[in-house]
């Protein structure tokens, strides 16, 4: 009888395959993973608590900083939630502009993922090439909103910047570029033998598992589930667009639920986004862009209103949901809950990693496009945890800042 020895291979919190801190401990037997454990909570910032101390407009900009990539998805869900709670609706033009920006973000996020997954399998030139193509949409977003990452575009009851003729023309040119670039990407990704070898039958997620573990977004769609908030509960301009979920059975005719299917879903979703943007531009209605242009008045309205609201948005990674409650005493939420798509999707790691090879770990980790700081809403301290009074934390922070300052300034 032979005895097999297993040993644990820690992936993270700091590891080249991870872009953000999370810990995956894999029990390995040779090259095969027999058990996997995920520990999260390294990027907890207490952002919900901070939001409950600010007014609604300030919290909106805080929500933009929950995630560095989906910097429109969280504000989108937040403004929908607040509008839901105070019974306000954005004017049609603002709704269309919101949809355009959200879809532009989907294009850049999906291309980002395609590059990241290529990097995970050591295919760096593909990363450089896809990200080179991504620059165009980043520049476009900078042109439309004034910044590359934190767009500061949405406002409760509308958007803050209008699209003029010049900007509309720039978007149209960009979409023509992306139609061509996406075709090239499809050719490259779908014909590459090593890419296929690394993703086919890797991190297989069955339809049943996806349902059981509440997978959302492209991950769930790759498993064959036709679920997409834009299709199931259309909001804003999506209601006029008749969005259909992109699933692999419509593309190749079969569902594997592996990393290759996720690639397909994402590639075809870029096409879908281009279509949505072009239709939005065609039907862009005239009119105001803000339901309440006076921000101080808006804050007063929020202060007077009582109630709770839920906002859902199909972020590039899946459904993001915000919940807010106002109690009529202050102009900010008294309760704010954020549920990011990675929160659901990280759960599937435990299942897809068992039986995988070590080489599959980065792909299985990367294929849901995890966003740690999106999903880290709670940090748990097991041993030696002690609650410090606010003043002491503040004093310690100051001491540290002064020390660093002395070191830097000399």
């Amino acid at each position, binding site marked *: 009888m032979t005895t097999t020895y297993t040993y644990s291979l820690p992936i993270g919190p700091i590891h080249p395959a991870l872009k953000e801190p999370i810990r995956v401990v894999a029990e390995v037997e040779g090259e095969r993973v027999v058990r996997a454990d995920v520990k999260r909570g390294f990027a907890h910032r207490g952002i919900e608590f901070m939001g409950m101390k600010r007014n609604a407009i300030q919290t909106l900009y805080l929500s933009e900083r929950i995630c560095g990539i989906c910097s429109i998805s969280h504000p989108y869900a937040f403004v929908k939630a607040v509008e839901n709670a105070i019974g306000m609706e954005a004017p049609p033009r603002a709704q269309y502009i919101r949809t355009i920006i959200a879809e532009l973000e989907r294009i850049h996020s999906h291309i980002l993922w395609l590059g990241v997954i290529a990097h995970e399998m050591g295919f760096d*030139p593909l990363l450089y090439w896809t990200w080179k193509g991504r620059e165009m949409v980043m520049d476009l977003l900078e*042109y439309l909103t*004034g910044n590359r990452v934190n767009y500061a575009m949405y406002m409760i009851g509308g958007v803050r910047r209008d699209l003029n003729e010049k900007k509309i023309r720039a978007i149209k040119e960009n979409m023509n570029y992306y139609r061509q670039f996406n075709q090239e990407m499809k050719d490259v990704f779908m*014909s590459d033998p090593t890419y296929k070898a690394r993703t086919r039958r890797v991190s297989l997620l069955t339809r049943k598992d996806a349902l059981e573990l509440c997978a959302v977004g492209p991950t769930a769609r790759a498993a064959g589930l036709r679920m997409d908030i834009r299709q199931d509960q259309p909001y804003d301009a999506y209601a006029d667009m008749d969005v259909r979920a992109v699933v692999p059975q419509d593309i190749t005719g079969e569902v594997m639920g592996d990393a290759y299917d996720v690639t397909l879903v994402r590639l075809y979703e870029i096409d879908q986004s281009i279509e949505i943007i072009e239709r939005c531009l065609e039907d862009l209605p005239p009119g105001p862009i803000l339901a309440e242009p006076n921000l101080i008045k808006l804050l007063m309205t929020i202060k007077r209103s009582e109630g709770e609201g839920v906002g859902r948005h199909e972020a590039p990674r899946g459904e993001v949901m915000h919940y807010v409650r106002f109690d009529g005493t202050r102009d900010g939420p008294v309760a704010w809950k954020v549920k990011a798509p990675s929160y659901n999707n990280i759960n599937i790691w435990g299942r897809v990693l068992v039986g995988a090879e070590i080489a599959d770990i980065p792909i299985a980790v990367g294929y849901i496009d995890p966003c740690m700081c999106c999903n880290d809403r709670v940090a748990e301290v097991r041993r030696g945890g002690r609650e410090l009074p606010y003043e002491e934390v503040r004093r310690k922070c100051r001491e540290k800042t002064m020390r660093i300052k002395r070191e830097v300034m000399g």
Partner: protein
Amino acid sequence: MPTKMMMVLIKQMFRKPYTNRFPVKYAPKDVTGLIQKVLRGEVKIHPPVPVPEDFRGKLAYDPERCIGCKMCIRVCPANAMEFIPETRKIRHYVARCMFCALCVDVCPGKKLPGEEAPVKALKMSEEFLIADYDKYSKNLVEE
């Protein structure tokens, strides 16, 4: 085994690199010396990538136009504004600013005599090279 990727790569090889150039080709031994040389016009550097119109750079504050209404302080998500009661003006800490331009949106501005419409006291400039060691340096506090 020729793949599509190989074709893409070989095509790229004969094009100009896509990367934005660094100001100088290789890291200089003495950065401060280089900056001084550039200021004197002895060395030419690659210029930074131009920013688009409506770019949200460092906030420009004109105290002349400020009426001290404190609206910017109410909406500022980063609490980067401070009210100075003596002068009834604001002080803006750029180190805290997150460049959302909300204060610019709410600023009512002031109409100086002879003008038709009020002009805002705050506006976003195109300046973005504002890194500093000291967050309270002259460049990063506006009043």
